């Protein structure tokens, strides 16, 4: 079954939970007992409608305060695809959650309240989708029922959003505008006749037709997770390099170079369980054996010999900070880049990037929780890397606090 991962961000007020609830309801993904629980709780709270946020807000604190704090995962499926929605809160203090949700997403839904139009939160959502290079963005203009399904309202919002889009540097991003009413179900799972002026498809039809596997055909990267060496006689000299293929497919016979040692060999076999394959596409977890006995360990990356990336002992990256302890120059963190970990020192913080496209603040030499900044690193070892814009897997890393062990931030190289 095809899987599509989607990110949504927003507050309770803009109808995000209603939209998700509507998708679940119209695809018959809400079971009777879950629906009953929603009805029961909606009644208890005195609502005269079904509050679908009760289905998505999982923690006690969230239900008490009526807000989404964390990333929640919601699942539904059609005959064609399985969908995974990473649902995150939209306020500025949850930027890190939005970044986390978007990092997993192949498509993203930005909700706009038709009565309010493009607001500060819209800027932030779009900025994060730009930064993380989420290819497919649906701008869903919601609550069209409350503006009498007026085409002009929709067109004005679309024009405002296009102005915002002019500031984005991610030209290949595909943006689709859809007028909807999540509450009434218009253009969510199916097209209705309330907006005959709208010629496009419903949100679900758009998602059904997406083919995200063709999006990211970039240089192949194979980070080695572990080496399989069976202690059995028949596999005496067997060394299978276990990992997941990123970027594009690998084939038997491909000339490959091992990073960082720069030793070369050819792919002898590509194996998955008890089968051998000629070729494996990006996204597959496989084991690879090489023609030559060379030293390969966890943390190494196999690349095609004509696609060796750049290397350096310094790094420049946009960092989203996720920890309560502020990031300051001179601090040391461990960088996890694929399966490799190296020690890094913060050299300088060039500036904090405003998520509303208003520019850069260069006055502060530190980065606080939920801020995104341009950071320069000094590395303890030479690192082979890609720019994030060219290759997501080769161009992203997390920062691990060496004392608390927590994931303190995420970096996008370039």
């Amino acid at each position: 079954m095809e899987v599509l991962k989607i990110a949504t961000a927003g507050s309770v007020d803009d109808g995000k939970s209603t939209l998700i609830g509507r998708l679940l309801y119209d695809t018959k993904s809400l079971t009777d007992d879950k629906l009953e629980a929603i009805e029961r709780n909606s009644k208890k709270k005195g609502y005269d409608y079904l509050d679908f946020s009760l289905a998505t807000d999982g923690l006690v604190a969230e239900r008490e305060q009526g807000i989404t704090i964390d990333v929640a995962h919601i699942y539904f499926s059609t005959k064609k695809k399985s969908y995974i929605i990473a649902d995150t809160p939209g306020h500025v203090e949850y930027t890190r959650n939005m970044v986390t949700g978007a990092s997993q997403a192949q498509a993203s839904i930005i909700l706009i309240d038709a009565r309010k139009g493009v607001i500060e939160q819209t800027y932030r959502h779009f900025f994060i989708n730009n930064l993380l290079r989420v290819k497919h963005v649906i701008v869903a203009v919601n609550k069209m029922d409350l503006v009498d399904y007026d085409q002009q309202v929709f067109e004005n919002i679309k024009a405002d959003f296009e102005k915002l889009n002019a500031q984005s540097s991610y030209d290949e991003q595909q943006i689709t505008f859809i007028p909807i009413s999540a509450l009434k179900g218009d253009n969510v799972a199916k097209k209705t006749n309330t907006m005959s002026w709208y010629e496009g498809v419903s949100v679900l039809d758009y998602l059904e037709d997406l083919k995200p596997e063709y999006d990211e055909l970039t240089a192949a990267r194979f980070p080695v997770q572990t080496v399989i060496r069976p202690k059995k006689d028949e596999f005496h000299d067997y060394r299978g390099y276990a990992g997941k293929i990123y970027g594009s497919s690998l084939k038997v016979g491909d000339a490959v170079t091992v990073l960082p040692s720069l030793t070369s060999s050819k792919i002898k076999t590509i194996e998955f369980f008890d089968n051998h394959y000629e070729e494996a596409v990006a996204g597959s977890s496989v084991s690879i054996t090489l023609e030559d006995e060379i030293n390969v360990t966890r943390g190494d990356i196999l690349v095609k010999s004509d696609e060796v990336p750049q290397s350096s002992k310094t790094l420049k990256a946009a960092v989203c900070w996720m920890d309560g302890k502020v990031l300051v120059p001179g601090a040391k963190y461990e960088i996890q880049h694929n399966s490799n970990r190296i020690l890094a020192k913060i050299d300088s913080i060039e500036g904090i990037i405003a998520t509303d496209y208003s520019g850069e603040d260069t006055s502060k030499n530190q980065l606080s929780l939920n801020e995104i900044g341009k950071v320069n690193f000094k590395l303890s070892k030479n690192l082979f890397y890609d720019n994030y814009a060219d290759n997501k897997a080769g161009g992203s890393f997390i920062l691990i606090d060496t004392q608390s062990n927590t994931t303190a931030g995420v970096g996008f190289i370039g």
Partner: protein
Amino acid sequence: MSKILKTNALESEAIFIFREVVAQFENPVLLFSGGKDSITLVRLAQKAFYPGKIPFPLLHVDTGHNFPETIEFRDRLVEELGLNLIVRNVQDAIDAGKVTEETGKYSSRNMLQTTTLLDAIEEFKFDACIGGARRDEEKARAKERIFSVRDDFGQWDEKNQRPELFDLLNGKIEIGQNVRVFPISNWTELDVWSYIEQEQIEIPSIYFSHKRKTFVRDGLIWSASKYVYREEDEEVLERIVRFRTVGDMTCTAAVESEADTIERIVNEIKVSTISERGARIDDKRSEAAMEKRKQQGYF
């Protein structure tokens, strides 16, 4: 020699996670209940390390109230695959006075498992416990990470979880802490069943339609057994049932079903209007039952 390997996204993700566990931890263990989710995990682990053996043991926390079919199945699987199985019994914790047996109409050993699990983690110094929990099962589980850090009391701090970005899993921990790992986090019940069908994985017979002595309480079908408390007016009848989820007898309700093959089970689930955990008596205790249990170290 064949063909091109197309990717099965969920399977590939689960195998990736298994390999990260073995690379990042010294002493992992797979929590095995004998249910379909943990059986699926065993298959995925087999694939992840082939042609090597599964490089960690299985741990079964036995409440003593299991369906005998589950235990038979467990022992056969372990034998066939040459796995290392560790069993720890809830009865031992009761005998040692660490926990007290519940009494009354809804008594169950489900909550008592936590103590036995935490004791076993300490005894064997496990640093990663791999489990078959899925985010679609229950709303507190929807917030769970793939690598979920627990303190040395096994507690889950749901408000202070590590962000998980891309495929970058961070398993760094202090001594005494451990990580719960959920390779099939993103699978739904239907995904698991479809995979069992596709891979022709053997599962215990209680998942298939069979005759069983049962009684009805609170709209759920309970097994009539010496382990399950029953009031005098609760009448035992033989019904054609099967189980959608397998915990122990005191917390798992049956559903009426004629589905006697995997194919028929898959079809039944596709049209089902009741969620899987709708048949879990342990979740019905309160709106936040799962969240509370997880904070205390429940699996």
